[in-house]
C-alpha cells in the first residue's frame, strides 16, 4: 500500500499534469473576474456619457465582452464535466 502511494507521488511529481491543470483553472478564474470588472466599468461609462456616438461604441464593446464572458463560462463548464 505504502509503495503504491509512493509510486503515485513520484508519478505526480514527474507528470506535473495536475499542477498545470490547477494553474490553468486559476488563470481562467482571474480572467473571468477581470472580464466582469470590465463589463461593470463599461456599463457605468454608458450611463455616464451623453454622447450618442460614444454610447454606441461602448455598447458594441459591452456586447463583445459579454460574448467573451459567455464563451469562457461555457469552456469552464466543459472542463468541469
Amino acid at each position, binding site marked *: 500500500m505504502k509503495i503504491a502511494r509512493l509510486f503515485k507521488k513520484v508519478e505526480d511529481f*514527474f507528470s506535473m499534469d495536475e499542477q498545470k491543470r490547477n494553474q490553468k483553472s486559476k*488563470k481562467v478564474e482571474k*480572467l473571468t473576474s477581470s472580464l466582469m470588472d470590465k463589463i461593470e466599468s463599461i456599463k457605468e461609462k454608458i450611463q455616464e456619457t451623453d454622447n450618442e456616438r460614444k454610447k454606441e461604441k461602448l455598447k*458594441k*464593446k459591452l456586447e463583445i465582452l459579454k460574448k*467573451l464572458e459567455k464563451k*469562457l463560462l461555457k469552456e469552464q463548464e466543459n472542463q468541469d464535466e
Partner: protein
Amino acid sequence: MSIEVFNFNILKRYIYPLFLLSVAYVLFLSSDAKVIIAGVAVFLIGMVFMEDGFKLFSGGILERILKVSTSSVPKAIGTGFVATAIVQSSSLISIIIISFLSAELITLSGAIGVVFGSNIGTTTTAWIVSAFGVKIKIAQLAMPMLIFGVLFRFNKNKSYQGLGNVLIGLGFVFLGIGYMKEGFEALKGGLDLAQFAMEGYLGVLVYVLIGAIATIVMQSSSATMALIITALVTNQIVYLNALELAIGANIGTTVTAVIGSLTSNANGKRLAVAHLIFNMVTGFIAIVLLYQLADLVTFISSKIGIASDDYAMQLALFHTIFNIIGVLAVSPFTPKLVVFLKGLFEEKVKDVSRARYLDNAVVEVPEVALLALKKEIMHLYDNATEALSHALSLHRHTYIGLGDEISKAIESSVVMIDLDIDEFYERKIKTLYGDIINYATISQETMSVEDEHKIYSLKIACRDIVETIKDVKELQKNINRFMDSKNEHIKGEYNYLREEIARTLDGIHTLRNNSDDLEVLVKIKLLEENLNKLDMIKSGRIDNLIRNNSIETKMATSLINDSIFAYEISKNLIHVATVLWIEDREIQELGEE
C-alpha cells in the same frame, strides 16, 4: 574587418597548432600535469553542461527577471549578481543581456549594471570551490550528481532534461576540481611550484600576467580560479601570488569578451568595452592596493570566522572584495560611460530588408529566441503595411491615427502610387521572411512543446503577412484602374475597399502599445465585426448596384472578386495582430473562433 580576418588567420594557422603541440608535450613529460590538465578539461565540460542546462531548465524565468529588473543601475547590479551566482555563467548572462539590448527591451545603462553585478556574481565560484570543492571528498558528491543527471536527461520533459544537464555539469565541475587537486598533490612530490614564488611588484606583474593568459587560453575565469585554489590548498603557490593570479583572471576574462564581440553588433561591442573598462579599473585598483587589500581580507576573515590558515576561503573573500570595490568605483560613472560607448560605436543605419533582431547567439535560449522572432515579425509586418498602403495609393502618415476621419483621407488621396509589388516583395519581404522561418525552425529544436506551439503560431502569422502582399497585388490592378473612373459608383466602391483595409491597419496601430490583453482582444473583435461588411454578396451591396444599373456586369464581377481579396487581407492582418500583440495565451485562445 581586414584586421579581424588577419588575426583569425594567424590564430588558425600558427597559434592554435602550436598550443596543441605544447599541451601534448607537457602531457608526454609529466603524468601529474596530465591529471591537472584533464581536471581543467572536465571542469570546462561541466561549465558547458551547466550553461546548456540553465537554458532549458529556467523556463524563461531568468530572461523575465533580467528584462524587468534593470530599471536602475543599482537594481541592475543586484540582478546581475543574483543571476550569475545562480547560473554560474557570466557569459550566458552577457548573451541574454546583449539580445535584450538589441531588441531595445533594456537600456545600455541597465545592461552595464548587469555586467557589473555579474562580475561580483562570478566570484561565488571561488566560494563554492574553496568551501566545498577542496575540503570534502568531492568525487563522492560528483558521482550521484552525474548518475541522477543522466537519469533526468532521459525524461521527455525539457525542464527535467535541463535539470539533468545542470546536475551533470555540477558533477563534472566537482570531478574536475578533484582531478586538479589530485594532480597538484602528486606533482608536489616531484616539482614544487612554490619555489617560483616572487615577491614585490615584479612578482605582482608576472603573476597577474600568468592569470590573464591562463584565462584567455581556457576562456573561463572560473576554471582559472578553480586551478588557483587547488594549487593554493596543495601549497603549490603562495597566498600573495594566488591573489595576483586572481586579479589576472579578472583581466583575462575581458579579453575573451572583447574577442567574442568582434563579430557582434554595436551593442555587443559597447558591452564588451564596458566590461573591459570595468575590469581594467578594478585590476588597477587591486594591483595598487594589493597589500592593503590583503590586510583587509585578513581583518574581515578574523571577524567572520574564516581560519587564519584557510587561504582558499581568504582568496575567495579577496576576489569578492576587489570586485565590489570595482563596482563602487566605476558605477557612479555609468551615465558618462553610456555617452562614451554610444559615441565609440555608432549603430549602422538599419537596413529594413534584413533581419534586425535574429541573433544566432540566443537561438538556443527559448524565451529570448521567441522574443527576437516576435520583434522580427513585427518588423516584417511594418514592411508589409508600407506595401499595403502604397498599393492602395495611400501614405501611412495620411491616415494612421485618424480613426473615424479615415474616409476623408481616402477621398483626398487621389494620386496613384505606382508601386511594383513584385519588386517590393523581393526587396523588403522575401529575404526577411526566409530569415525568420529559418531562425524559427532552428530555435524550436531546443524548445518545450508549449514553446513549439508559440513558434507554430508565429510561423502562421508570417505566412499571413506574406499572403496580404499577394492579395493586395491582385487588388491593386483594379484600384488603379477605377481610381480615375468617370463612374462615381465603382470609384466609390473601390474607395470603400481601400477605406476598410486602412481602418484595419489603423485599428491595429492603436492597439500595438496597449499592455492590457483583454482590451486588445476587444479591439480585435470590433475589427472582426467589420469584416463581414466586406463580403459584397452577403451584405447585399452588389445587388443594389446591379439593380440600379449603377455599374456594368463586368465591373460587378471584378468588385465581387476584389472584395474577397480585401476581406482576406483584413482577416489575415487581424490574425497577425492576435498573435503579435496579445501576450497571454489564454486570452489569445479566447479570441479564436
